[in-house]
Protein backbone atom coordinates (compact mmCIF):
# COMPACT_ATOMS: atom_id res chain seq x y z
CA UNK A 1 0.00 0.00 0.00
CA UNK A 2 2.62 2.49 1.07
CA UNK A 3 4.69 1.54 -1.93
CA UNK A 4 1.80 2.47 -4.15
CA UNK A 5 1.38 5.84 -2.52
CA UNK A 6 5.06 6.50 -2.72
CA UNK A 7 5.17 5.71 -6.40
CA UNK A 8 2.24 8.03 -6.98
CA UNK A 9 3.95 10.84 -5.11
CA UNK A 10 7.17 10.50 -7.04
CA UNK A 11 5.11 10.59 -10.20
CA UNK A 12 6.35 7.22 -11.34
CA UNK A 13 3.39 4.91 -11.44
CA UNK A 14 3.99 1.73 -13.29
CA UNK A 15 1.32 2.28 -15.89
CA UNK A 16 -0.51 5.35 -17.09
CA UNK A 17 -2.66 4.91 -20.10
CA UNK A 18 -2.91 8.06 -22.19
CA UNK A 19 -5.16 8.94 -25.09
CA UNK A 20 -3.70 6.28 -27.33
CA UNK A 21 -4.84 3.01 -25.83
CA UNK A 22 -1.70 1.09 -26.78
CA UNK A 23 0.71 3.72 -25.51
CA UNK A 24 2.11 2.92 -22.12
CA UNK A 25 4.14 5.80 -20.86
CA UNK A 26 6.91 4.13 -18.88
CA UNK A 27 10.22 5.51 -19.91
CA UNK A 28 12.03 3.21 -17.49
CA UNK A 29 11.32 0.31 -19.82
CA UNK A 30 13.36 1.76 -22.65
CA UNK A 31 17.05 1.87 -23.17
CA UNK A 32 17.30 5.35 -24.52
CA UNK A 33 15.40 7.33 -27.17
CA UNK A 34 16.44 5.06 -30.05
CA UNK A 35 15.02 2.05 -28.23
CA UNK A 36 11.80 3.95 -27.60
CA UNK A 37 11.62 5.03 -31.25
CA UNK A 38 12.09 1.44 -32.36
CA UNK A 39 9.28 0.30 -30.07
CA UNK A 40 7.00 3.03 -31.48
CA UNK A 41 8.01 2.16 -35.03
CA UNK A 42 7.02 -1.45 -34.47
CA UNK A 43 3.51 -0.18 -33.71
CA UNK A 44 3.29 1.03 -37.29
CA UNK A 45 3.41 -2.66 -38.17
CA UNK A 46 5.20 -2.08 -41.45
CA UNK A 47 8.64 -2.92 -42.74
CA UNK A 48 11.07 -0.55 -41.11
CA UNK A 49 12.33 0.39 -44.56
CA UNK A 50 8.89 1.78 -45.40
CA UNK A 51 8.20 3.44 -42.09
CA UNK A 52 6.76 6.91 -42.00
CA UNK A 53 9.32 9.00 -40.17
CA UNK A 54 6.81 11.83 -39.98
CA UNK A 55 4.29 9.64 -38.19
CA UNK A 56 7.06 8.27 -35.98
CA UNK A 57 8.16 11.77 -35.02
CA UNK A 58 4.56 12.59 -34.08
CA UNK A 59 4.23 9.49 -31.91
CA UNK A 60 7.49 10.20 -30.16
CA UNK A 61 6.55 13.81 -29.44
CA UNK A 62 3.16 12.69 -28.08
CA UNK A 63 4.84 10.17 -25.83
CA UNK A 64 7.33 12.69 -24.52
CA UNK A 65 4.58 15.23 -23.93
CA UNK A 66 2.55 12.65 -22.01
CA UNK A 67 5.57 11.73 -19.95
CA UNK A 68 6.18 15.34 -19.08
CA UNK A 69 2.53 15.83 -18.07
CA UNK A 70 2.81 13.10 -15.48
CA UNK A 71 6.13 14.60 -14.41
CA UNK A 72 8.20 11.65 -15.43
CA UNK A 73 11.80 12.55 -15.10
CA UNK A 74 13.17 12.35 -18.59
CA UNK A 75 16.84 11.98 -19.29
CA UNK A 76 18.28 14.81 -21.35
CA UNK A 77 18.84 12.67 -24.41
CA UNK A 78 15.10 11.97 -24.68
CA UNK A 79 14.50 15.71 -24.84
CA UNK A 80 17.34 16.24 -27.32
CA UNK A 81 15.79 13.61 -29.56
CA UNK A 82 12.37 15.28 -29.19
CA UNK A 83 13.82 18.62 -30.24
CA UNK A 84 15.62 17.04 -33.17
CA UNK A 85 12.47 15.22 -34.30
CA UNK A 86 10.41 18.41 -34.02
CA UNK A 87 12.99 20.11 -36.22
CA UNK A 88 12.96 17.20 -38.69
CA UNK A 89 9.18 17.25 -38.76
CA UNK A 90 9.09 20.95 -39.65
CA UNK A 91 11.70 20.39 -42.37
CA UNK A 92 9.73 17.49 -43.78
CA UNK A 93 6.54 19.54 -43.90
CA UNK A 94 8.11 22.62 -45.48
CA UNK A 95 9.20 22.66 -49.09
CA UNK A 96 12.95 22.06 -49.41
CA UNK A 97 15.11 25.12 -50.04
CA UNK A 98 16.66 25.20 -53.51
CA UNK A 99 20.26 24.74 -52.32
CA UNK A 100 20.29 23.14 -48.91
CA UNK A 101 23.48 23.55 -46.90
CA UNK A 102 23.49 20.33 -44.97
CA UNK A 103 21.77 17.04 -45.59
CA UNK A 104 18.22 17.28 -46.83
CA UNK A 105 15.28 16.40 -44.59
CA UNK A 106 14.76 13.28 -46.64
CA UNK A 107 18.36 12.22 -46.06
CA UNK A 108 18.03 12.83 -42.35
CA UNK A 109 14.85 10.76 -42.26
CA UNK A 110 16.53 7.93 -44.15
CA UNK A 111 19.49 8.04 -41.81
CA UNK A 112 17.18 7.70 -38.81
CA UNK A 113 15.31 4.84 -40.48
CA UNK A 114 18.65 3.14 -41.11
CA UNK A 115 19.69 3.49 -37.51
CA UNK A 116 16.45 1.91 -36.43
CA UNK A 117 16.89 -0.91 -38.93
CA UNK A 118 20.42 -1.50 -37.70
CA UNK A 119 19.34 -1.66 -34.07
CA UNK A 120 16.52 -4.00 -35.03
CA UNK A 121 18.94 -6.16 -37.00
CA UNK A 122 21.41 -6.43 -34.14
CA UNK A 123 18.57 -7.33 -31.75
CA UNK A 124 17.54 -10.09 -34.09
CA UNK A 125 21.14 -11.25 -34.42
CA UNK A 126 21.66 -11.29 -30.66
CA UNK A 127 18.51 -13.37 -30.25
CA UNK A 128 19.73 -15.88 -32.76
CA UNK A 129 23.14 -15.92 -31.16
CA UNK A 130 21.74 -16.57 -27.71
CA UNK A 131 19.52 -19.30 -29.09
CA UNK A 132 22.46 -21.22 -30.45
CA UNK A 133 23.37 -24.32 -28.47
CA UNK A 134 25.57 -22.96 -25.73
CA UNK A 135 28.40 -24.68 -23.97
CA UNK A 136 27.54 -25.81 -20.43
CA UNK A 137 23.89 -24.95 -21.08
CA UNK A 138 22.93 -27.18 -23.98
CA UNK A 139 26.03 -29.06 -24.93
CA UNK A 140 28.77 -30.29 -22.70
CA UNK A 141 32.44 -31.08 -22.93
CA UNK A 142 34.01 -34.15 -21.37
CA UNK A 143 33.16 -33.87 -17.70
CA UNK A 144 36.16 -35.70 -16.39
CA UNK A 145 39.00 -35.20 -18.80
CA UNK A 146 42.03 -37.40 -18.46
CA UNK A 147 45.16 -35.44 -17.90
CA UNK A 148 48.05 -36.03 -20.19
CA UNK A 149 50.82 -37.01 -17.84
CA UNK A 150 54.04 -35.14 -18.16
CA UNK A 151 56.98 -37.44 -17.52
CA UNK A 152 59.97 -35.29 -16.74
CA UNK A 153 63.44 -36.67 -17.14
CA UNK A 154 65.87 -34.54 -15.20
CA UNK A 155 69.08 -33.70 -16.95
CA UNK A 156 71.65 -32.42 -14.52
CA UNK A 157 74.18 -29.85 -15.48
CA UNK A 158 77.54 -29.14 -13.90
CA UNK A 159 80.87 -28.24 -15.41
CA UNK A 160 84.34 -29.46 -14.60
CA UNK A 161 85.11 -25.96 -13.44
CA UNK A 162 82.23 -26.14 -10.93
CA UNK A 163 83.60 -29.45 -9.72
CA UNK A 164 87.20 -28.31 -9.28
CA UNK A 165 86.20 -25.02 -7.69
CA UNK A 166 83.98 -26.88 -5.24
CA UNK A 167 86.80 -29.24 -4.35
CA UNK A 168 89.46 -26.58 -3.94
CA UNK A 169 87.23 -24.28 -1.90
CA UNK A 170 86.24 -27.05 0.51
CA UNK A 171 89.73 -28.38 1.10
CA UNK A 172 91.14 -24.93 1.57
CA UNK A 173 88.36 -23.92 3.91
CA UNK A 174 89.06 -26.92 6.11
CA UNK A 175 92.74 -26.06 6.40
CA UNK A 176 92.03 -22.47 7.34
CA UNK A 177 89.35 -23.49 9.82
CA UNK A 178 91.80 -25.77 11.64
CA UNK A 179 94.34 -22.97 12.03
CA UNK A 180 91.66 -20.72 13.39
CA UNK A 181 90.54 -23.25 16.00
CA UNK A 182 94.14 -23.73 17.20
CA UNK A 183 94.38 -20.03 17.92
CA UNK A 184 91.37 -20.12 20.15
CA UNK A 185 92.91 -22.73 22.43
CA UNK A 186 95.40 -20.19 23.77
CA UNK A 187 94.34 -18.46 27.02
CA UNK A 188 95.40 -14.88 26.55
CA UNK A 189 96.98 -12.74 29.26
CA UNK A 190 94.06 -10.41 29.10
CA UNK A 191 91.62 -13.26 29.67
CA UNK A 192 93.70 -14.55 32.60
CA UNK A 193 93.99 -11.13 34.18
CA UNK A 194 90.28 -10.42 33.88
CA UNK A 195 89.47 -13.70 35.60
CA UNK A 196 92.00 -13.14 38.37
CA UNK A 197 90.76 -9.63 39.01
CA UNK A 198 87.25 -10.96 39.46
CA UNK A 199 88.49 -13.60 41.87
CA UNK A 200 90.77 -11.32 43.89
CA UNK A 201 87.88 -9.00 44.50
CA UNK A 202 86.19 -11.63 46.66
CA UNK A 203 89.26 -13.46 48.10
CA UNK A 204 89.88 -11.87 51.51
CA UNK A 205 91.53 -15.08 52.71
CA UNK A 206 94.41 -17.00 51.19
CA UNK A 207 93.17 -19.17 48.33
CA UNK A 208 94.94 -21.80 46.30
CA UNK A 209 95.53 -20.51 42.79
CA UNK A 210 96.00 -24.01 41.33
CA UNK A 211 92.63 -25.20 42.59
CA UNK A 212 90.98 -22.13 41.23
CA UNK A 213 92.63 -22.50 37.85
CA UNK A 214 91.83 -26.18 37.56
CA UNK A 215 88.16 -25.39 37.80
CA UNK A 216 88.64 -23.22 34.74
CA UNK A 217 90.52 -25.76 32.71
CA UNK A 218 87.90 -27.84 30.94
CA UNK A 219 90.16 -29.30 28.32
CA UNK A 220 93.32 -30.91 29.77
CA UNK A 221 95.21 -29.80 26.68
CA UNK A 222 94.64 -26.20 27.74
CA UNK A 223 96.14 -26.69 31.19
CA UNK A 224 99.57 -25.37 30.21
CA UNK A 225 98.34 -22.20 28.56
CA UNK A 226 95.93 -21.44 31.41
CA UNK A 227 98.56 -21.87 34.08
CA UNK A 228 101.18 -19.87 32.20
CA UNK A 229 98.89 -16.97 31.40
CA UNK A 230 97.42 -16.86 34.91
CA UNK A 231 100.86 -16.89 36.56
CA UNK A 232 102.02 -14.01 34.40
CA UNK A 233 98.83 -12.11 35.10
CA UNK A 234 99.16 -12.78 38.85
CA UNK A 235 102.68 -11.34 38.92
CA UNK A 236 101.38 -8.30 37.12
CA UNK A 237 98.61 -7.81 39.70
CA UNK A 238 101.09 -8.15 42.58
CA UNK A 239 103.34 -5.56 40.98
CA UNK A 240 100.37 -3.22 40.79
CA UNK A 241 99.63 -3.84 44.47
CA UNK A 242 96.27 -5.41 43.88
CA UNK A 243 97.07 -8.82 45.30
CA UNK A 244 99.52 -10.85 47.33
CA UNK A 245 101.12 -14.12 46.36
CA UNK A 246 102.63 -16.76 48.65
CA UNK A 247 104.56 -19.87 47.80
CA UNK A 248 106.35 -22.00 50.42
CA UNK A 249 108.95 -23.44 48.08
CA UNK A 250 109.62 -24.14 44.40
CA UNK A 251 106.80 -26.04 42.70
CA UNK A 252 104.65 -25.79 45.85
CA UNK A 253 101.07 -24.57 45.34
CA UNK A 254 100.66 -20.82 44.95
CA UNK A 255 98.34 -18.97 47.37
CA UNK A 256 96.86 -15.57 46.71
CA UNK A 257 94.59 -13.07 48.39
CA UNK A 258 93.43 -9.53 47.95
CA UNK A 259 96.00 -7.05 49.21
CA UNK A 260 94.71 -5.58 52.50
CA UNK A 261 95.28 -1.93 53.58
CA UNK A 262 98.43 -1.19 55.57
CA UNK A 263 96.68 -0.94 58.95
CA UNK A 264 95.06 -4.29 58.61
CA UNK A 265 98.29 -5.74 57.27
CA UNK A 266 99.96 -5.19 60.65
CA UNK A 267 98.30 -8.22 62.04
CA UNK A 268 100.21 -11.35 61.18
CA UNK A 269 99.17 -13.10 58.03
CA UNK A 270 97.53 -16.31 58.96
CA UNK A 271 98.37 -18.71 56.23
CA UNK A 272 95.81 -21.28 55.42
CA UNK A 273 96.42 -24.59 57.04
CA UNK A 274 96.01 -27.60 54.86
Amino acid at each position, binding site marked *: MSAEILSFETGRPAEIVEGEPSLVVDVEGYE*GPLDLLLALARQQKVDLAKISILALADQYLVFIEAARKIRLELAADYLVMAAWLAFLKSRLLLPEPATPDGPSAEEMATALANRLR*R*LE*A*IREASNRLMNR*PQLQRDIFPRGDP*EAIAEVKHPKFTATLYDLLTAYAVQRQQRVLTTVHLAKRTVWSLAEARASLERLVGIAEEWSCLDEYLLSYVVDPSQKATVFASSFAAALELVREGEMELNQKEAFAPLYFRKRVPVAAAMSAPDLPVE
Partner: protein
Amino acid sequence: MASLAEKRIVDDEDHPVDPQARPEELRLLEALLFASTEPLDQATLAKRMPDGVDIKQALAQLQADYALRGVNLVRVANKWTFRTAGDLSWLMTRESTETRRLSRAAIEMLAIIAYHQPVTRAEIEEIRGVVTSKGTLDVLLETGWIRPRGRRKTPGRPLTFGTTEAFLSQFSLEALGDLPGLEELKGTGLLDSRLPSGFSVPAPSDDPALRDDEDPLEIGDNLELLLAPAADPETGGEEG
Protein backbone atom coordinates in the same frame (compact mmCIF):
# COMPACT_ATOMS: atom_id res chain seq x y z
CA MET B 1 55.19 -45.89 -37.13
CA ALA B 2 54.49 -46.02 -40.84
CA SER B 3 53.56 -49.61 -40.14
CA LEU B 4 50.22 -48.38 -38.90
CA ALA B 5 49.21 -47.18 -42.32
CA GLU B 6 50.48 -50.39 -43.85
CA LYS B 7 48.69 -52.48 -41.28
CA ARG B 8 45.49 -50.76 -42.14
CA ILE B 9 45.78 -51.51 -45.81
CA VAL B 10 46.54 -55.12 -45.07
CA ASP B 11 43.54 -55.29 -42.77
CA ASP B 12 41.34 -53.75 -45.40
CA GLU B 13 42.43 -56.30 -47.92
CA ASP B 14 42.07 -59.21 -45.57
CA HIS B 15 38.64 -58.30 -44.25
CA PRO B 16 37.17 -55.87 -46.71
CA VAL B 17 33.73 -55.95 -45.09
CA ASP B 18 34.65 -56.47 -41.46
CA PRO B 19 33.06 -53.51 -39.69
CA GLN B 20 35.29 -54.07 -36.67
CA ALA B 21 38.50 -53.46 -38.60
CA ARG B 22 38.70 -49.82 -37.69
CA PRO B 23 41.88 -47.97 -38.63
CA GLU B 24 44.16 -47.65 -35.63
CA GLU B 25 44.52 -43.91 -36.17
CA LEU B 26 40.83 -43.44 -35.43
CA ARG B 27 41.38 -45.10 -32.07
CA LEU B 28 44.32 -42.82 -31.37
CA LEU B 29 42.40 -39.73 -32.44
CA GLU B 30 39.36 -40.51 -30.36
CA ALA B 31 41.53 -41.30 -27.35
CA LEU B 32 43.37 -37.99 -27.63
CA LEU B 33 40.26 -35.94 -28.24
CA PHE B 34 38.25 -37.69 -25.53
CA ALA B 35 40.92 -37.21 -22.94
CA SER B 36 41.75 -33.60 -23.60
CA THR B 37 40.29 -30.73 -21.60
CA GLU B 38 40.81 -28.32 -24.45
CA PRO B 39 39.86 -28.49 -28.11
CA LEU B 40 42.92 -29.54 -30.14
CA ASP B 41 43.95 -28.19 -33.49
CA GLN B 42 45.10 -30.32 -36.38
CA ALA B 43 48.76 -29.45 -35.92
CA THR B 44 48.73 -30.50 -32.25
CA LEU B 45 47.01 -33.75 -33.14
CA ALA B 46 49.50 -34.39 -35.92
CA LYS B 47 52.37 -33.97 -33.47
CA ARG B 48 50.94 -36.63 -31.17
CA MET B 49 49.96 -39.04 -33.91
CA PRO B 50 52.21 -41.47 -35.75
CA ASP B 51 53.82 -40.21 -38.93
CA GLY B 52 52.10 -40.80 -42.22
CA VAL B 53 48.55 -40.49 -40.94
CA ASP B 54 46.24 -38.27 -42.95
CA ILE B 55 44.83 -36.38 -39.98
CA LYS B 56 42.35 -34.39 -42.00
CA GLN B 57 40.81 -37.46 -43.53
CA ALA B 58 40.85 -39.33 -40.22
CA LEU B 59 39.07 -36.45 -38.50
CA ALA B 60 36.43 -36.38 -41.21
CA GLN B 61 35.87 -40.09 -40.79
CA LEU B 62 35.73 -39.84 -37.02
CA GLN B 63 33.25 -36.98 -37.30
CA ALA B 64 31.05 -39.13 -39.50
CA ASP B 65 31.41 -42.06 -37.07
CA TYR B 66 30.08 -39.96 -34.23
CA ALA B 67 27.55 -37.92 -36.16
CA LEU B 68 24.57 -39.95 -34.95
CA ARG B 69 25.87 -40.65 -31.46
CA GLY B 70 25.12 -38.94 -28.18
CA VAL B 71 28.57 -37.44 -28.36
CA ASN B 72 29.65 -35.63 -31.51
CA LEU B 73 32.99 -34.56 -32.85
CA VAL B 74 32.74 -30.85 -33.55
CA ARG B 75 35.04 -28.18 -34.82
CA VAL B 76 35.19 -25.03 -32.72
CA ALA B 77 37.45 -22.14 -33.60
CA ASN B 78 39.24 -24.47 -36.00
CA LYS B 79 39.96 -26.92 -33.21
CA TRP B 80 38.44 -30.32 -32.68
CA THR B 81 36.63 -31.54 -29.62
CA PHE B 82 33.92 -33.95 -28.51
CA ARG B 83 30.69 -32.42 -27.24
CA THR B 84 27.37 -33.91 -26.24
CA ALA B 85 24.83 -33.81 -29.05
CA GLY B 86 22.82 -30.60 -29.13
CA ASP B 87 19.46 -32.38 -29.25
CA LEU B 88 20.14 -33.98 -25.87
CA SER B 89 20.24 -30.74 -23.90
CA TRP B 90 16.98 -31.77 -22.19
CA LEU B 91 18.78 -34.73 -20.72
CA MET B 92 21.77 -32.75 -19.55
CA THR B 93 19.98 -30.10 -17.52
CA ARG B 94 21.39 -31.45 -14.30
CA GLU B 95 24.92 -31.06 -15.58
CA SER B 96 24.48 -27.41 -16.44
CA THR B 97 26.32 -25.07 -14.15
CA GLU B 98 24.42 -21.99 -13.13
CA THR B 99 25.69 -19.53 -15.70
CA ARG B 100 25.21 -15.87 -15.07
CA ARG B 101 22.35 -14.52 -17.12
CA LEU B 102 23.52 -11.60 -19.17
CA SER B 103 21.44 -8.42 -19.17
CA ARG B 104 19.81 -7.36 -22.41
CA ALA B 105 22.30 -4.53 -22.67
CA ALA B 106 25.20 -6.97 -22.30
CA ILE B 107 23.77 -9.37 -24.86
CA GLU B 108 23.27 -6.56 -27.36
CA MET B 109 26.73 -5.27 -26.73
CA LEU B 110 28.18 -8.74 -27.23
CA ALA B 111 26.31 -9.11 -30.50
CA ILE B 112 27.51 -5.72 -31.73
CA ILE B 113 31.09 -6.63 -30.84
CA ALA B 114 30.73 -10.01 -32.56
CA TYR B 115 29.21 -8.67 -35.79
CA HIS B 116 31.08 -5.39 -36.03
CA GLN B 117 34.49 -6.23 -34.66
CA PRO B 118 36.89 -4.62 -34.35
CA VAL B 119 34.68 -1.96 -32.80
CA THR B 120 35.14 0.83 -30.28
CA ARG B 121 32.92 1.61 -27.37
CA ALA B 122 31.78 4.84 -29.03
CA GLU B 123 30.71 2.86 -32.12
CA ILE B 124 28.77 0.41 -29.96
CA GLU B 125 27.00 3.32 -28.32
CA GLU B 126 26.26 4.86 -31.71
CA ILE B 127 24.45 1.69 -32.75
CA ARG B 128 22.57 1.24 -29.49
CA GLY B 129 21.82 4.93 -29.10
CA VAL B 130 22.74 4.88 -25.39
CA VAL B 131 25.89 5.13 -23.35
CA THR B 132 27.07 1.83 -21.96
CA SER B 133 27.84 1.53 -18.33
CA LYS B 134 31.30 0.36 -17.41
CA GLY B 135 29.64 -2.42 -15.46
CA THR B 136 28.21 -3.96 -18.62
CA LEU B 137 31.60 -3.93 -20.28
CA ASP B 138 33.16 -5.44 -17.16
CA VAL B 139 30.62 -8.27 -17.12
CA LEU B 140 31.38 -9.06 -20.75
CA LEU B 141 35.13 -8.98 -20.22
CA GLU B 142 34.65 -11.29 -17.26
CA THR B 143 32.98 -13.90 -19.45
CA GLY B 144 36.19 -14.08 -21.43
CA TRP B 145 34.21 -13.88 -24.66
CA ILE B 146 35.50 -10.45 -25.65
CA ARG B 147 38.89 -8.82 -25.43
CA PRO B 148 40.39 -5.44 -26.17
CA ARG B 149 42.48 -6.00 -29.27
CA GLY B 150 44.08 -2.66 -30.06
CA ARG B 151 43.52 1.05 -30.36
CA ARG B 152 41.81 2.84 -33.21
CA LYS B 153 44.04 5.35 -34.97
CA THR B 154 41.66 8.22 -34.28
CA PRO B 155 41.81 11.11 -31.83
CA GLY B 156 41.73 9.74 -28.29
CA ARG B 157 43.00 6.39 -29.57
CA PRO B 158 40.01 4.43 -28.21
CA LEU B 159 40.28 0.71 -27.54
CA THR B 160 38.92 -1.65 -30.14
CA PHE B 161 37.13 -4.80 -29.02
CA GLY B 162 36.78 -8.21 -30.60
CA THR B 163 35.67 -11.71 -29.68
CA THR B 164 37.86 -14.54 -28.41
CA GLU B 165 38.15 -18.26 -29.06
CA ALA B 166 36.12 -18.81 -25.91
CA PHE B 167 33.28 -16.95 -27.63
CA LEU B 168 33.38 -19.32 -30.59
CA SER B 169 33.53 -22.26 -28.21
CA GLN B 170 30.62 -20.97 -26.12
CA PHE B 171 28.34 -20.63 -29.14
CA SER B 172 29.64 -23.66 -31.02
CA LEU B 173 30.98 -21.66 -33.93
CA GLU B 174 33.65 -23.09 -36.15
CA ALA B 175 34.64 -19.62 -37.23
CA LEU B 176 33.27 -16.11 -37.05
CA GLY B 177 31.83 -16.51 -40.52
CA ASP B 178 29.32 -18.94 -39.00
CA LEU B 179 27.61 -16.22 -36.97
CA PRO B 180 23.86 -16.63 -37.49
CA GLY B 181 22.35 -14.25 -40.04
CA LEU B 182 25.71 -12.82 -40.99
CA GLU B 183 25.08 -13.11 -44.72
CA GLU B 184 21.72 -11.35 -44.52
CA LEU B 185 23.20 -8.55 -42.45
CA LYS B 186 26.02 -8.10 -44.91
CA GLY B 187 23.55 -8.12 -47.79
CA THR B 188 21.46 -5.31 -46.32
CA GLY B 189 24.50 -3.17 -45.66
CA LEU B 190 23.53 -2.90 -42.02
CA LEU B 191 26.95 -3.94 -40.84
CA ASP B 192 28.51 -0.73 -42.00
CA SER B 193 28.60 1.53 -39.01
CA ARG B 194 28.89 4.69 -41.05
CA LEU B 195 25.60 6.08 -42.35
CA PRO B 196 24.49 5.80 -45.08
CA SER B 197 26.83 3.87 -47.24
CA GLY B 198 26.13 1.70 -50.19
CA PHE B 199 29.46 0.05 -50.79
CA SER B 200 32.25 -2.05 -49.27
CA VAL B 201 30.48 -3.75 -46.43
CA PRO B 202 33.14 -4.80 -43.98
CA ALA B 203 32.86 -8.34 -42.70
CA PRO B 204 33.50 -8.84 -39.01
CA SER B 205 36.83 -10.44 -38.30
CA ASP B 206 38.46 -11.81 -35.19
CA ASP B 207 41.74 -12.18 -37.02
CA PRO B 208 44.21 -11.23 -34.32
CA ALA B 209 46.18 -9.29 -36.93
CA LEU B 210 45.40 -5.64 -36.45
CA ARG B 211 43.58 -3.69 -39.14
CA ASP B 212 45.16 -0.75 -40.88
CA ASP B 213 43.34 1.64 -38.61
CA GLU B 214 44.36 -0.18 -35.43
CA ASP B 215 47.42 0.28 -33.25
CA PRO B 216 48.59 -2.48 -30.92
CA LEU B 217 47.94 -2.27 -27.21
CA GLU B 218 51.02 -1.02 -25.43
CA ILE B 219 52.95 -3.32 -23.14
CA GLY B 220 51.87 -2.55 -19.64
CA ASP B 221 48.52 -1.19 -20.77
CA ASN B 222 46.50 -1.72 -17.66
CA LEU B 223 43.06 -2.78 -18.76
CA GLU B 224 41.49 -1.66 -15.51
CA LEU B 225 42.85 1.81 -16.02
CA LEU B 226 42.12 1.89 -19.71
CA LEU B 227 38.49 1.12 -19.25
CA ALA B 228 38.10 3.58 -16.42
CA PRO B 229 37.73 7.36 -16.61
CA ALA B 230 39.03 8.40 -20.02
CA ALA B 231 37.21 5.72 -21.96
CA ASP B 232 34.09 6.08 -19.85
CA PRO B 233 31.81 8.86 -20.97
CA GLU B 234 29.74 8.55 -17.80
CA THR B 235 32.52 9.11 -15.32
CA GLY B 236 34.09 11.51 -17.75
CA GLY B 237 30.95 13.56 -17.52
CA GLU B 238 31.17 13.77 -13.78
CA GLU B 239 34.68 15.09 -13.95
CA GLY B 240 33.89 17.65 -16.68
